[in-house]
Each structure stands twice: as C-alpha cells, then as structure tokens.
C-alpha cells in the first residue's frame, strides 16, 4: 500500500469523525439550555461568580435575544476557535485548565493501556494454550471475578491494603510536591505514585482483554488455515506464534480502541479516589462547584480524544491486517 492512499484514508476517516464532534457540540449546547439559568449565567459559573459586565457581554456574544439556532451558531463558532469560555470558579480560561490537566490523565491512560493490553494478551494466550486444565480455570475464574468488580471499590481496597496497612505506596496525588524532586528523582516519584491508580484502572480491562484473547485464540485455532498449516508440516509452536496469535490479536486491538471512552470515564472515578490531578478530578470538582461550562468542556475534550484514539487504532489496524485494503 502506498503512503498516499494511507494519507487519503486518514483524511476520509477524519471527515467521518466530524459528525461525531458536531453531535457532541450540539448535545453540549442542548445541555446548557437545560441547565438552570440562562446560557450566559451558566457559562459564567452560575451563583453570581462573574461580574455583571461580563455576563452582559456574554449575553451579547451569544445573542441571547436571537433565536435558538443563531445561539447555537455562536456557540459553535466559539468552539471552532477553541474558545471554551472562562471558569470563574477557578479564575482561568477553561481551555488552559483542560490543557493543564490533560497530561496526567494521558499518562494514566497510556500506563493503563500498556499494562492491561500486555498482561491481558499474555493471560488470554496462556489460558488458551492450557485450555481445559486447572491453570485455564484459575485464569478464567479470576478474570470473571475481576470483570464483575466495581473499579472504585478496587481502588479503595488497594489503598486499604497497600497504602494504609503495608505503607508501600502513597494514598493520593501524582507526586510529592513538598519534596521538590528534580530530574530523575521526580520521574521515580511520579512512577511510585502511578502504581496503584494504574493497577486499579488496569484490572478490569486486563480481565476483559484476557477473556477476549482466550476466546479469539480458541476460535482461530479451529479455522481452516490452521489445518492447512498443520498439513504442511509446520510445528505447533510456529502455528501458534506465526498464525493463530497474530490473527487472534485483531479483536483485542479493536476492543482496546472501543474502550477508550470507558477508560476516560473510569479515570473520573479513579482520579477522585487517588486525588490524581487530571481531567477526571477536574470533572469531579466542577461537578460540585456547578461549573457546567468547565464540565462540558471536559466532556467535549474527552469526546475529541476518543475520536482521535479510534482513528489511531484504525490506522494500526490497517498495518496489522493487510486484508483490510483501504477503500
């Protein structure tokens, strides 16, 4: 496949994702209409947090005297130039707040993705190789139990055991701010804080991927091409690593892409528990400050993030599976 067609594919996929972004903008606008108070007061952070001049200016800018569709047009125009408004609760533009909090959440998500995908694939592979032995049963039963466990409860239980009782890991935060670590020390400190949140968030997805990988391996193993490979005299080891494993990976990769949105949702709960200074914690705080504008900004950014990740997964997919010829 030439690089030109890949570029064209990406552009085509991008245009397909535009309706989703547009949909989120419209949903956000409708929710702002539903929120108590008019758009300007909601945007200004309700409860009279903003000076009157600003609210008047907002009313003019959003065309409060205009019909609803004109208001929607103004709202979209502002979002188009990434003007997400101002949070009077936190005294900063929403966009700045979001960008500030984006990196901790991305760090957590990437760490979780690596741990859950890596371990999940290995666990699923082992369970499939050991199918119908006690080892398979142990892995499968563990996966079923973890799959049923509420995320926030796992987090609290891990804190109870590993932070409070054993004192191995810190209970909250992303780094020891009073220690003023620099350079390498700071990396180690953040990694130390990262362990419990990552384990918590990973467990559910680890179970999900392990179950999927096992099922996918077993399904692939029964297909005709395996019989052909065996008839050609290929060793079982080679059949597993070269053929079955690679094909079995595809549904897991798809699922990993689909789960991005869930991962972001999980990080709200998780960051609230571990006081992880990311988007989720910001969402949690804005919830109780009734800072709707900030909350909707987070929702918007998360949706954009999901769309981007799905795009990346689709591109990876094309590389993994040459059968998916673009077009």
């Amino acid at each position: 496949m030439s690089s030109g067609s890949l570029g064209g594919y990406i552009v085509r996929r991008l245009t397909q994702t535009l309706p989703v972004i547009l949909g989120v903008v419209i949903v956000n606008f409708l929710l702002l209409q539903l929120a108590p108070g008019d758009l300007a007061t909601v945007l200004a952070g309700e409860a009279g947090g903003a000076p009157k001049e600003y609210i008047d200016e907002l009313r003019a800018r959003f065309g409060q005297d205009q019909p609803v569709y004109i208001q929607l047009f103004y709202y979209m125009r502002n979002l188009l130039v990434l003007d997400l408004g101002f949070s009077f609760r936190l005294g900063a533009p929403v966009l700045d707040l979001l960008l500030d909090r984006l990196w901790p959440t991305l760090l957590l998500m990437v760490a979780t993705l690596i741990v859950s995908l890596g371990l999940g694939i290995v666990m699923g592979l082992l369970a499939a190789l050991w199918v119908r032995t006690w080892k398979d049963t142990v892995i499968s039963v563990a996966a079923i139990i973890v799959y049923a466990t509420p995320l926030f409860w796992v987090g609290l239980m891990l804190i109870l055991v590993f932070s409070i009782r054993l004192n191995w890991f810190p209970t909250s935060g992303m780094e020891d701010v009073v220690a003023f670590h620099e350079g390498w020390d700071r990396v180690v400190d953040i990694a130390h804080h990262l362990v419990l949140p990552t384990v918590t968030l990973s467990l559910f997805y680890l179970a999900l991927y392990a179950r999927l990988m096992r099922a996918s391996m077993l399904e692939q193993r029964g297909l005709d091409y395996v019989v052909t490979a065996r008839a050609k005299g290929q060793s079982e080891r080679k059949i597993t690593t070269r053929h079955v494993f690679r094909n079995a990976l595809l549904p897991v990769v798809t699922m990993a892409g689909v789960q991005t949105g869930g991962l972001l949702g999980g990080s709200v709960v998780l960051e609230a528990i571990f006081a992880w200074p990311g988007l989720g914690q910001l969402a949690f705080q804005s919830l109780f400050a009734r800072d709707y504008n900030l909350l909707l900004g987070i929702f918007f950014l998360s949706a954009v993030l999901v769309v981007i990740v799905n795009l990346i997964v689709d591109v990876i997919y094309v590389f993994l599976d040459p059968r998916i010829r673009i077009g």
Partner: protein
Amino acid sequence: MKTFWPRFLSNPRVFLGLVWLGLLLIVAITANQLAPIDPFAIVGRPMAAPSPEFWLGTDSLGRDVMAGLIHGTRATILIAVVATLIAVGFGTFVGAVAGYYGGLIDDILMRFTEFFQTIPSFLFAIVLIAVLTPSALNLIIAIATVSWPPIARVVRGEVLTVKSREFVQAAVLAGQGDAAILLKQVLPNTLSPLIVTGSLLIATAILVESALSFLGLGAPNVMSWGFMIGAGRSFLRQAWWLVTIPGVAILLTVLAINLIGEGLNDTLNPRLSDL
C-alpha cells in the same frame, strides 16, 4: 425449548448465580420487614465494629450498616432493572426500525447509535445528571441513555437476518401491516440474543449506578450500595467494613448476573458454548 430449563439449571455457575439473585430478590421484597428501621436513622455509637447488636457495625454517623445494605439492595436492583428495561425498549425500537426499513432510515439510525457508542458514556451520564440535578428518575434516565446502543445493534442484526425468511414474506403477502409483522413475526425470533444482551446489561447498569452514587450523583435520600461506599470512603483507616461490605455485595451481584447471562448464552446459542 423443552430442553432449555434442565440444560440451563445443570450448569453449576448458573445455579450459584440464581441462588444469590433469588436471595437478593427476597431481601429486596421484604426489606421493610427484615430491617424495619429507616436506614438513615441514627441507632448507635458512630463507627462501632460488627457486633451481635449491629451485625455489620455502624457507619460514621451511627447508622446501621446491615439496614443500609438491606434497603440498598432494593434501591440498587430497582434502579438497574428499570433503567435496563427502558434501554431494552428503546434499543429494540431503534434496532427493529433500522433493520426492518433499511436504506436511509437505517443509515440515520445507525449513525445515531454509533454516536452514542463513541462518546465517553460514563462521562456523559455524569454530565446528564449534573445538568438535570440528581434524582432517582434522572439516574434511571442517565443509565438508560448510555446503555441502549448494544441492544439496538443486536436487534438490528437479528432483524436483518430474519426479515428475508419465508414466513416474513408470507406475512407481507398476507397483507399484514409493518407493525404487526415486526411485533408478531420478526421480533419474537430475535428474543434469544436480546435476552442474553439484556441480562448482561443489568450488570453494567448496577456498576454504573453504584459508581454514580459513589460520586454523590445518586438519588438523594435513597440508601444504595454505591452511596454507602462513597460515605464510608473517608473513614477507610478507622472503619474498613464501611467500604468493604457493600463492595462485596456489588461484586457478588454483578458476578451472579454475568454468570447467568453467560449460561443463557451457552444454552440459547449452543454452537458458541465451546469458546
């Protein structure tokens, strides 16, 4: 279908799941008799450890944890089941119409479904409740809003395969209306995947409900398991049971529903049961 029940019940996982769910159902129905006191009533010393008087101890305000757990069973199950029923109803409607009519209607409805599948659903539920203000009804609306897409996709897929079969064409020739064909001919044949997906959805609904209640977005003045964990969270150091016990209840319930759902799947789609 005659062999359904014996095969279904002979699966030990299904049996265990049904026993736990049956127990919960009894607790939920007889909650007022089992624990006649208001679960929000202060009945003893704050944070008393489990004892003969309070089997599961008391919380930070001196409320009986056992009573909370019993009344929480009712609230959690009721909210999850009602939300799932709404999601199943709406999802079936969207999926059936999309699959049956096809063409532009199918395209529009499926883009609509995909949109709801793409946006971060838990975050969307949070935003919905935050804007609509927390209440039992809004909790149900939010959970249903984020849970219907899988149902729509399953039903659409089934309708697509069923609608080209001869008995449906016969009904068309016999002059039956679209609604009658959909309701009487097509939908009954999509029941088994619908039952499997729907039952698994209840488990998801319980997890979402408890996570929302944990964050303080649950129904106010309703004792639920998630709320109990959220309330006990700050006292993890002093009273571990406040968080641990309701969490075990959620875990066992979700596990039971998943086991039953998988058992249903194995029994209704036997060719997949080897996986």
